[in-house]
């Protein structure tokens, strides 16, 4: 029913939230020697989620390591610019998805009230 009401947006919001946390992990580990930056392939995670897999496993299977532009001496692959850009992009996309959801809820509320 949930899928029917909100279409793709419920799953998309979930994946966006997971990706935000993963990118947060990268930012948190900017100074950790040997840490490998990760990212969620949004498209793949959403596909898996829509195909019916659990939200946790969908995200974990779509998690990939980031390829650094320039390797650092201590083995850390976090590049602050990349991470911040990805974080900002993800935040905007999250807001967009939230907007779609809000619109859908509004439409339904109106239909229920019979306005």
């Amino acid at each position, binding site marked *: 029913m949930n899928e029917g009401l909100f279409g793709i947006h419920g799953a998309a919001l979930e994946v966006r939230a997971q990706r935000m946390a993963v990118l947060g*992990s990268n930012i948190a580990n900017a100074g950790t*020697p040997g840490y490998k930056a990760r990212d969620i392939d949004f498209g793949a995670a959403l596909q898996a989620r829509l195909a019916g897999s659990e939200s946790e496993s969908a995200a974990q299977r779509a*998690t990939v390591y980031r390829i650094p532009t320039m390797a650092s001496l201590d083995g850390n692959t976090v590049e602050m610019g990349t991470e911040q850009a990805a974080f900002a992009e993800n935040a905007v996309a999250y807001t967009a998805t939230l907007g779609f959801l809000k619109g859908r809820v509004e439409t339904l509320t109106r239909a229920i009230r019979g306005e």
Partner: protein
Amino acid sequence: MTMPGNASGPMSMFQMGYRAMSAQMVRMNAAASNLANAGSVAGSADEAYRPIRTVFAEELDKQSGLSSVRVDRVVRSDTAPVRRHDPGHPLADENGDVWEAPVDENAEMIEMLEASRQYSNMVEAMSTAKQLMLETMRMK
């Protein structure tokens, strides 16, 4: 009192931020200690202050697959203290030498700058996450 970093269950963005920020805080304090001891002298090489450095380690939360950071250990640098001939110094040994702490002020300032930048990056990420969460909660 429950600290945000000790809550059970899967790690949230806030716990992650809390841990990352406290790790950066420890790093900043270490740099501050080193700077405070720059130029301090001792009567022998063993007594001289050695700069301290924090070593971070990734802390993986298996439940959520997210990783935060913790201070793995604080190490003392093995740089040799600088010997200076200063017979008039009250701490000077029989040869008239004192040992100065091997603190590189420039390196410490850079360390501090980097810690503060990474700290504020985490604050920014956390406040964005907070804003989005609040917006999601306010959804009618």
